[in-house]
């Protein structure tokens, strides 16, 4: 971290205050972002702890069925109603949240590593290497996600969660690569880079120390955009029946099922739908706040 801080070259940072402390201060001032962070944290805690509490206090769990009590609206016993097999929706929504958040985090991490690495190299080296690397990205773009996932799932035979993590990550890094590449391309001839080069810095050092930190804004913006995007991808796969499989359910599966039934049983959509939408909202606001706080260039204004 310190290395990155000292590398924010041209900007004349006020002495003694690191970029990150600075960012933290600015973030704290952004009430919206802080509230969003709080909300996300709240959702995480509820999803992780909630099912245990529900089971301990109200004796609710996600698997016990009571068909006679199926598809009922919200009651004091079942706050978010029950699904057609009579399972408590709230517990299912909380468990679904665990899965949805896990998918979002892991897949985004995969995409981040792949995309930033790929884009940075392509953008910095440029020329033929850039062409080849970007053409590979094009090929992957041209190869639709669905085919890829159907084929892989068919060949592997099982729909395990790990496969789902890897697949979603593997299909969502390309945009990140393009954005990083574009950013690096526009930065690599700026004075501070030329200066570093003149001072004898190698390409790896230039990328890691100078270009990436200055591209952090877009990377963070895109990574935050990526979290909801991945959540939506998972939902979309669930809509196609390729996502998380029964008896597990993620927000995606619940929302996809709820959307089918919203005319008749709206609570099946409202519970998971609102929570998912609100989480995506909050993640986005948080991302915005982070961006405003972290972008090294912001400090000039």
């Amino acid at each position, binding site marked *: 971290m310190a290395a990155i801080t000292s590398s924010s070259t041209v900007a004349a940072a006020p002495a003694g205050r690191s970029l990150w402390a600075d960012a933290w201060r600015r973030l704290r001032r952004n009430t919206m972002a802080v509230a969003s962070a709080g909300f996300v944290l709240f959702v995480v805690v509820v999803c992780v702890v909630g099912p245990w509490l529900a089971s301990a206090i109200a004796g609710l769990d996600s698997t016990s069925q009571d068909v006679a009590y199926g598809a009922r609206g919200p009651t004091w016993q079942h706050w978010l109603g029950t699904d057609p097999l009579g399972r408590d929706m709230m517990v299912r929504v909380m468990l679904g949240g665990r899965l949805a958040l896990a998918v979002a985090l892991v897949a985004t991490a995969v995409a981040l590593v792949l995309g930033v690495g790929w884009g940075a190299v392509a953008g910095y080296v440029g020329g033929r290497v850039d062409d080849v690397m970007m053409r590979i990205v*094009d090929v992957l773009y041209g190869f639709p996600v669905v085919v890829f996932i*159907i084929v892989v799932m068919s060949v592997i035979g099982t729909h395990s969660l790990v496969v789902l993590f890897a697949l979603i990550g593997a299909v969502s890094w390309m945009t990140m690569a393009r*954005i990083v590449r574009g950013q690096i391309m526009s930065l690599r001839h700026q004075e501070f880079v030329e200066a570093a080069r003149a001072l004898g810095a190698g390409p790896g050092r230039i990328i890691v120390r100078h270009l990436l930190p200055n591209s952090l804004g877009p990377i963070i913006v895109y990574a935050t955009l990526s979290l909801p995007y991945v959540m939506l991808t998972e939902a979309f796969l669930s809509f196609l029946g390729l996502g998380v499989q029964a008896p597990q359910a993620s927000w995606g599966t619940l929302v996809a099922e709820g959307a089918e039934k919203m005319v008749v049983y709206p609570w099946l959509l409202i519970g998971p739908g609102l929570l998912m939408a609100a989480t995506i909202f909050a993640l986005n606001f948080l991302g915005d706040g982070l961006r*405003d706080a972290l972008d090294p260039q912001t400090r000039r204004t």
Partner: protein
Amino acid sequence: MIRLIVGRVLMGVVVLWAVATVAFFALHAAPGGPFDDERAVPPEVMRNIEERYHLDQPIFTQYLHYLGDVVRLDFGHSMKRQQTVAEIIRHHAPYSAKLGLFALAIAISLGVLLGVLAAHRQNRLADHAAMTVSLIGISVPSFVMGPLLVMIFALGLFWLPPARIEGFTSYILPATTLGLIYMGTIARLTRSGMLETLRQDYIRTARAKGVSERGVVWRHGLRLGLLPVVTYLGPATAGLISGSFVIEKIFQVPGLGYSFVASITDRDYPVLTGVLVFYAAFLTALNLVVDIVYGVLDPRIRDRR
């Protein structure tokens, strides 16, 4: 510039070959064939069918045949429908294109407007309102947004048809549903791009020179501020025009995307590979255009080329 284009076209051919090859082998690797159904066909009957469609030949022979046909721009015959693949593309692609372009128009006009507004009034109410609106687009999945819009405007108010394409009005709901997804992203990218641009030196110079605030924002700022948007427009347009099949399904638009997905589940090999090559060609062309536009918009890049 011409060298760039020629190089790109050659590269594009390689890309097309790669896409065609991967698609061909990937789909053939997936279990099942186009003629498997709940009622199984006796092996003798299946033998005739496979002979008829050359599915009895070794996979590599099939591949070479296929490649030969593709070189002659013959994508072959659908195995599940009577049309040739070329006919299927010709018939269905315009629907997807129209839907995509309407959606793109909605996404860009609303997205840029919201983004600029938000950047201009950073951290004020207008900013948050604009971002909230744009976020609705991103955070509600299209398979929820579509039925919701249908419920309100088609089934509740009877203003617009709930499904099928018949005339311009029937494009409104699907194009809005599709456009909202991209509008949110465009608004956000515009906002961040604009924020960055408005801090650049040349903007300060422009301000100092007495250019009006409106001029600064719309003429000077927008040009560079839209760079991330332009980068995004490539995949966005591709997604809008090719990947809209959920919306095509919900609204029963006879577009190419849905035919394409059906060809995967049907194992309709010629249609799948043909449409995929078509998409890849389209994307390659689109990326070329994006790169050229990028160069034109950003003098820093243009001058170094």
